[in-house]
């Protein structure tokens, strides 16, 4: 290999195209440096630095989004930049920002290290942003593992709580198992795609475009289909689709609330973006993909809503209802096989889900108490009288999750439904309707506790109602903005809706 060809290769490494991710990484490093450099009394400012940095990045991202970006590959086809990628950058930055704000609420009450939390959060966020733009299995796997390992740490971050550690361990073992399955699938696809004896074999079988071309030429290869289902099972773990959803409630319950929120929103969104990417790649195998995803969607919808029905722990409830949401999104993914509009619907749904979920988790972080332990629905009794603001935000968030107009969640569901109907998925739609109706029960059951009940001690003893901590300025601001955004996005979708649905 000569120098010019190396230079040509290196020239494809356009670092500017991943500027946001780079800056996030640098910000993460900066935090570590500052922790060493700054005196201890200033350490409390570090989260602020991280949040400000993310905010600045977000602002920059929004500004540059208006200018438009160059679509196309970079890093020798490892990455593919698109409008959707830009959007998801915003999404993950937003998620990171909100998680950070929640972190300031929760971490402040815990005796754990702070800076590392933000560092890992930023790294994971950057990895997610790369993940959803990856165009190559190596890139996909590496960033996915970065995300996953970062999340292992974050889940078990409250290391003096056995729950957090147990959740971390469960997440770790199941995550590693699913990674191994995913990896084996990738390996099989790589091996089949590069096999010289097969038609249209390719030298770089891990590149998605090349792989799709290969699959199109070999529509019924057994090893390829095994590889595909193994990759799907790996992704299904991320998005918590049936039957790979079983970890969700335990891990959600044990993890620190901000991390639960991050898991529920960002990790799931990343998983869905990956699913969309691989579904596009595997589109020649629609004969396999469509039934698998259909069955998965139906089972996920039903299991999620049924299991949440009798749940009393709000974190588990959110986790299981999140499973049901994954079912809705899967419905969109199935529809996306034939309807391009479904992709826009999924994006919109994810954004609505982000706003609503963080609103709910924000309230949960406030209510959970200093030990992050008050997680029963009965702890929410009488909240409306005590802290009407929190109750209102919670109601809006839950309403949006339940898909009630005029909140954003309804629009998301509507778009998904329309797409599904256009794709002719009537059976799945029926299941989805059932799931919506069931979901009303548990979401409104929670709202009922907040608004209609008075405080009774969960133990049945005459314990006095615990004093609820006042809402901090930043957290209050965040909750208010989230609630307003949820309402606003329900009434008026504006340019976002236009853009998503003209695609």
């Amino acid at each position, binding site marked *: 290999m000569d120098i010019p060809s190396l230079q040509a290769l290196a020239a494809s490494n356009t670092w500017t195209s991943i500027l946001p991710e780079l800056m996030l990484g640098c910000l993460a490093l900066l935090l570590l440096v500052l922790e060493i450099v700054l005196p201890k009394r200033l350490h409390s400012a570090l989260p602020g630095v991280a949040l400000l940095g993310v905010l600045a990045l977000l602002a920059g991202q929004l500004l540059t989004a208006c200018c438009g970006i160059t679509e196309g590959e970079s890093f020798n086809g490892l990455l593919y930049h698109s409008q959707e990628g830009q959007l998801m950058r915003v999404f993950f930055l937003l998620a990171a920002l909100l998680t950070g704000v929640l972190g300031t609420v929760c971490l402040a009450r815990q005796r754990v290290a702070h800076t590392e939390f933000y560092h890992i959060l930023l790294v994971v966020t950057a990895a997610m942003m790369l993940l959803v733009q990856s165009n190559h*299995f*190596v890139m996909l*796997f*590496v960033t996915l*593992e970065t995300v996953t*390992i970062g999340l*292992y*740490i974050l889940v*078990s971050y409250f*290391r*003096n709580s*056995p*729950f957090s*550690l*147990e*959740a*971390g*361990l*469960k997440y*770790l*073992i199941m995550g*590693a*198992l699913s990674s*191994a399955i995913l*990896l*084996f699938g990738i*390996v*099989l696809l*790589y*091996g089949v795609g*590069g*096999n*010289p004896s097969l038609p249209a*074999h390719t*030298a*770089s*079988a*891990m590149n998605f475009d090349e792989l799709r071309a290969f699959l199109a030429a070999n529509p019924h290869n057994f090893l390829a289909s095994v590889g595909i289902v193994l990759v799907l099972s790996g992704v299904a773990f991320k998005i918590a689709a049936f039957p790979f959803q079983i970890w969700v*409630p*335990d*891990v959600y*319950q*044990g993890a620190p609330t901000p991390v639960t929120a991050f898991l529920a929103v960002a990790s799931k969104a990343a998983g869905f973006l990956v699913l969309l990417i691989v579904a596009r790649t595997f589109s020649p195998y629609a004969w396999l993909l469509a039934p698998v995803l259909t069955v998965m969607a139906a089972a996920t919808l039903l299991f999620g809503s049924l299991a949440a029905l009798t749940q009393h722990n709000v974190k588990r409830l959110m986790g299981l209802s999140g499973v049901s949401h994954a079912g809705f999104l899967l419905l969109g993914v199935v529809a996306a096989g034939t309807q391009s509009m479904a992709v826009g619907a999924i994006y919109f749904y994810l954004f609505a889900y982000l706003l609503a979920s963080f609103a709910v988790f924000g309230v949960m972080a406030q209510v959970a108490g200093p030990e992050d332990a008050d997680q029963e629905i009965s702890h929410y009794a009488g909240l409306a009288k005590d802290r009407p603001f929190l109750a209102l935000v919670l109601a809006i968030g839950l309403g949006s999750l339940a898909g009630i107009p005029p909140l954003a969640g309804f629009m998301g569901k509507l778009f998904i439904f329309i797409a599904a109907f256009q794709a002719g998925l009537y059976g799945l739609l029926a299941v989805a309707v059932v799931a919506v109706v069931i979901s009303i029960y548990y979401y409104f059951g929670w709202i009922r506790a907040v608004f209609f009940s008075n405080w009774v001690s969960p133990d049945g003893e005459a314990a006095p109602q615990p004093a609820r901590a006042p809402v901090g300025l930043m957290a209050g601001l965040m909750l208010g903005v989230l609630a307003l955004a949820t309402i606003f996005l329900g009434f008026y979708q504006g340019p976002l809706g236009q853009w998503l649905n003209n695609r």
Partner: protein
Amino acid sequence: MIHAGLNTYVTLSALLFVIGFFGVLLRKNTLVIFMSLELMLVASTLALVAFSRFNGTLDGNVFVFFILTIAAAEVAVGLAIIVALFRMRRTVQVDELNALKH
């Protein structure tokens, strides 16, 4: 005597993978479960190297680098969690780690 062709390697790797999977299912000791998981990763690398060799592309071999690194990081984090948990609960048996349920 089995001929060392691609199919053999792939089947062998699949066998290793399945053994690892079986270990994950069978064992109750988190450490051994963890080792079984590592075995599954190693099985994948074996297939990867075989494919790389017989397909004549280097990508597979390069991928192994990353897999090894990731495995190492995973082990480090995993063991740290296990140790921390052991400090609190004095056990590494998964049967006894079921405070989170229902």
